[in-house]
């Protein structure tokens, strides 16, 4: 079964982190990614751009109508997500708890209900 892990954040939270703490944080996250890529359980890990880049897209008269997202007003927004494929929900929970900052910030865990794989 596939699972989606998500972490949330905002500018304030990230700016509160001292710049010299970033390399270590990134290295820990990279180690997590490498670990589960190697077990064959991590399908992909994706970090999103700043909320300032998020757009809302609608179709009007057959054309895309694009506006800035409402995200700037929300307290926290989706920052990164990981797609897992693992044996059981217990295993997914184990992996989520192994995320480098799961001791301080919760990780959202969602089972994936269905998918349309692009390369099948």
């Amino acid at each position, binding site marked *: 079964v596939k699972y989606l892990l998500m972490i949330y954040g905002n500018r304030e939270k990230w700016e509160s982190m001292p710049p010299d703490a970033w390399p270590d944080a990134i290295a820990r996250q990279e180690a997590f990614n490498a670990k589960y890529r190697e*077990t064959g359980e991590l*399908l992909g890990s994706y970090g999103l751009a700043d909320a300032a880049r998020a757009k809302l897209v609608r179709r009007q008269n057959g054309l895309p109508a694009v506006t800035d997202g409402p995200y700037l007003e929300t307290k926290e927004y989706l920052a990164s997500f990981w797609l897992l494929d693992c*044996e059981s929900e217990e295993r997914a929970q184990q992996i989520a708890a192994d995320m480098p900052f799961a001791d301080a910030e919760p990780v959202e865990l969602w*089972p994936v*209900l*269905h*998918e349309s794989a692009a390369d099948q």
Partner: protein
Amino acid sequence: VTGAPGAPDIGELLRELAPQVLGALVRRYGEFGACEDAVQEAMLEAVASWPASGVPESPKGWLVTVASRRLIDEVRGEHARRRREQDHAVASAPLEQPPGPGPDHDDSLTLLFLCCHPALSGPSQVALTLRAVGGLSTAQIAAAFLVPEATMAQRISRAKQAIAASGARFELPGPAERPERLRIVLHVLYLIFNEGYAATAGAGLTAPELSGEAIRLTRWLHRLLPQDPEITGLLALMLLTEARRAARTGPDGSLVALDQQDRGAWDHALIAEGVALISSVLPLGEVGPYQVQAAIAAVHDEAPAMAATDWPQILALYELLEQLAPGPMVSLNRAVAVAMVAGPDAGLDLLAALESDRRLAGHHRLHATKAHLLEMAGDATGAVASYREAARRTTSVPERRYLLARAARLGVREP
């Protein structure tokens, strides 16, 4: 590996030969991981060249020869250079004599035990068995499980490392550990079948290729070890379940429950085969969980209609299964059988006791079963709530649609 158009049986032949070729190579050279890669390469070469050149007189000898060369190339670290030279040579090279009537069957069996080594996780056992014993390519296995090929390749390579690290030898498990090792093998085959029969996630209800592959491998194992009643039981269970496949999905891909299925659309040849298999082992008295599950499937398959089902017998079989292999799902099924024999309230009483089981508490099957029994008891409002709760919790799209349709049919307004 699939055959090229116009040569449909090459793929089948190759997959039949794959474990024998790999067994021969591992016996000769050791190094399971490297041998396995070499056999895959030899199979790819066969797919590329046999449709044009024709199937060699001894396809197994050809594959052993080509795989051995690939392996030796790999070992010498001259892979790329030799490959260029040999691309032309292979097709015309004189074939070595295939190994004579050797311990092929034992080797294939040893291979299966190795792929289902207890040092591996369930998904790794499944992936490695499909590749090394089933002869499927990494790309095919990845497609069946809807994961990227790179992920599946990683899973397989890690499985091989785990086998190497465990120090496992290429030999059949000894008598002391054999029953437990065989139990794992049967469980892996069962997982492959189940993934094909009721894909755990996804829009399609079934992925027939995996069920077919599980049946093929279990048939093969049954031929190797015809005396083992649990192997026979597992094969019977698969056939008796597979027999209902066509009736299990509607034309729009939706799920059709057992009580709504067109029993005329069941595959009666498969049912006859499954019933004959299970009938041949039950009298031996060495009963095990797969035999009991097959017996339950046989009772369902032999009933001309849901109402004509021999529920007291099914209940007795679930009671036996609960002793042999206790688990929350077995208890859940027993509650359904109790409801069919003694009425829905008796079944609901059993469910109430199960609701405190943490393994079941949030499970959609518990809510779905409760919904069915409440519907039987005439409590439409309660049934609708339970159908909706079950629909929220399932990870199968057809099942969700089925549960919501069941709720809608009861015509209760949203609370």
